[in-house]
């Protein structure tokens, strides 16, 4: 704009310059928005074409199935408590799959995260391969490992537990190592100077600093894992998901048991979510947070 070196740009120049820039930016935003809208519409159209039942016919029937389930459950409401008792062990199995998987996964992730953090790893060359391994573990959907393990080990809760635990190692390992990077290295150096082993340096020097964050992340994972465990049950890995699939396959007229399972699963997820968010709030904000009047 400024042709001569000795004159500063006039206010009018700045103004036109600014407006031109704004126009260009707005133009770019419009184009991006248009591309996005086209992608959404085209994507929806493609998905609709590829679906067995179309959206425009289906949405009117969207409530048919819930209505059947609710209707039948309401009709035979007196049977529901019995079903709750009947399916409680399955629910417990689903929760146990998630619980054990989270615990095992978190313990392995703890070690892996130390190995993947610069400054904490006992050997520098370990960092890159451990990180890649965690990336891969995170990228594999649980169902892939679970289906293969079901083929090898037969059905039941163990394949689901291993599958979820492996994914948990990947997910938590990354989060843990991010937490580790913020940990102070002074305690580690202190322990090293007294001749503490690597294990001692980590357990006594790092873990006390990062434990609240670890716990908070692990609780969040537990919430996610309960859902995953129910889904894996649905493909044959035991627990309440498996029962849900069976009761669903009995078809119309027998949906009252499915309704009981829906309710159990819903209640379990809500309760675990609430409990875990309560504890996570306490971990991150301390006791005082609750006293200030924050609810859950």
């Amino acid at each position, binding site marked *: 704009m400024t042709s001569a070196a000795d004159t500063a740009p006039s206010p009018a120049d700045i103004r036109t310059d600014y407006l031109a820039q704004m126009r260009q930016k707005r133009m770019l935003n419009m184009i991006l928005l248009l591309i996005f809208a086209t992608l959404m519409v085209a994507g*929806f159209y493609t998905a609709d074409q590829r679906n067995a039942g179309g959206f425009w016919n289906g949405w009117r029937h969207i409530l048919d*199935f819930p209505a059947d389930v609710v209707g039948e459950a309401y009709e035979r409401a007196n049977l529901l408590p019995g079903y709750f008792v009947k399916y409680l062990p399955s629910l417990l199995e689903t929760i146990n799959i998630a619980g054990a998987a989270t615990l095992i996964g978190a313990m392995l992730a703890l070690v892996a995260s130390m190995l993947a953090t610069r400054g904490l790893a006992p050997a520098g060359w370990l960092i890159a391969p451990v990180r890649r391994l965690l990336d891969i573990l995170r*990228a594999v959907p649980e169902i892939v490992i679970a289906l293969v393990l079901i*083929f*090898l*080990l037969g059905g039941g809760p163990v394949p689901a537990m291993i599958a979820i635990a492996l994914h948990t190692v990947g997910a938590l390992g990354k989060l843990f190592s991010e937490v580790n990077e913020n940990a102070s290295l002074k305690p580690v150096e202190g322990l090293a100077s007294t001749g503490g082993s690597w294990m001692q340096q980590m357990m006594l020097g790092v873990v006390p600093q990062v434990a609240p964050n670890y716990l908070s992340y692990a609780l969040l994972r537990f919430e996610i894992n309960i*859902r995953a465990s129910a889904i894996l049950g649905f493909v044959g890995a035991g627990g309440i998901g498996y029962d849900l699939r069976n009761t669903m396959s009995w078809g119309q007229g027998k949906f009252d048991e499915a309704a009981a399972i829906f309710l159990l*699963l819903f209640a379990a997820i*809500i309760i675990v*979510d609430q409990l875990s968010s309560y504890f996570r709030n306490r971990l991150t904000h301390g006791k005082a947070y609750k006293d200030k009047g924050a609810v859950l």
Partner: protein
Amino acid sequence: MTDAATYAAADRSLTRKRMFTLAAPAVILAYLTYVFVAFDVAGLADRVSLSNMQTLVSDTYSYKVHVTRDNRDGATSVAIEGERKGEYPEGTAPDWVTLADTTRVDLANGAFITLGETTSFDIPGYGTVTATPGRSGVNATFPPGDLPEWINASKNRVAITADGARLTITRNRTEVFRYFYGWELFFFTLDSPFHGKSVTELLSSGQYGAIWSDFWSNKMWRHADVAWALFETVLMAFLGTFGAAMIALPLGFLAAKNFTPLGSLRFAARRVFDFLRGVDGLIWTIVLSRAFGPGPLTGSLAIMLTDTGTFGKIFSEALENVDDKQIEGIASTGAKPLQRYRFGVIPQITPVLLSQVLYYLESNTRSATIIGAITGGGIGLMLTQAIITQKDWEEVSYYIILIILMVMAMDSFSGWLRRRLIQGTGEGTH
């Protein structure tokens, strides 16, 4: 507080902490023991199927070619993996099989088999086994001495496992399996003229269109279908994630304290989010697949419903944390309410929302694989189908690798987009 009291309090606190450090591992151990007993982990050793494991591993890195002689009509056929799709055209065979009245099959290390009325297997270092299947069973003669453990012979069936090959003779058919490393027919099937050509030959032939279409329509590996399935999975994640974000944004305003003074409305919006999240993707998938049938649309809508709940919660929290000063500043210039939202609120929350949404895009690619396996669509469906047939394990491995690559690609793509968009916007937070 006196010194003594302070010491006592510190002592108690230390004891409590010490108890806790001891108790926590003990509780964890007790819980894991209980779970392992409940899941019967000890009995796992009996349940694990070693033969299945062997099939899975060996199928992943090798394939076998079947040479089959029908003993009733004497017809001989050669087929890769014994599948129709991998059958050699009538009268042709790989160079280690010589088709004639008595077909000769050459194996590794100088061993060979001749298939005819009488089958003979010449095994270097052992001798020749001959077998004649007839009405009374399989009459086999072996070199003198005890049968080695790799020969399994009974009246009706003789099975010999040799170096990289296997011979099975029954009354109805004589079958030779020869094992090779790699994935069979990955690029071209046998009916393609390009099968068995080297890369330089293909490059110099100039028929790129035909080469591509033969590869793309490969009946064995179905590259076109696989690519489409991957696309469908990504599509489910894309539609679900961004659809949910678009629905959740206005609802998020309803649930935020500083934008919705009406308590009951706020309460209702929050309970809707809790409900959507609590019902969970699994149940939404089941409910929706009843209405829409299997397919990518069902998967997209299931992801959309679940994530509307999640995003609604995250968005409303982000909205409650916006800085009022910016809105006041916009209002002081005489902006109308809509303009206040557009220029006062949206720039503040865009980075938070975008980074959350893009983060979920990656995680939803995984969910879409799982939902596809349940409701039928995308790569999840192909994977479950390949596993159910229990024989195409090389395809299972292939799909698993593709799924991992797909998720990693989505991960880096969403990370890239996050950096670009959030830095590119430049407004609001840094």
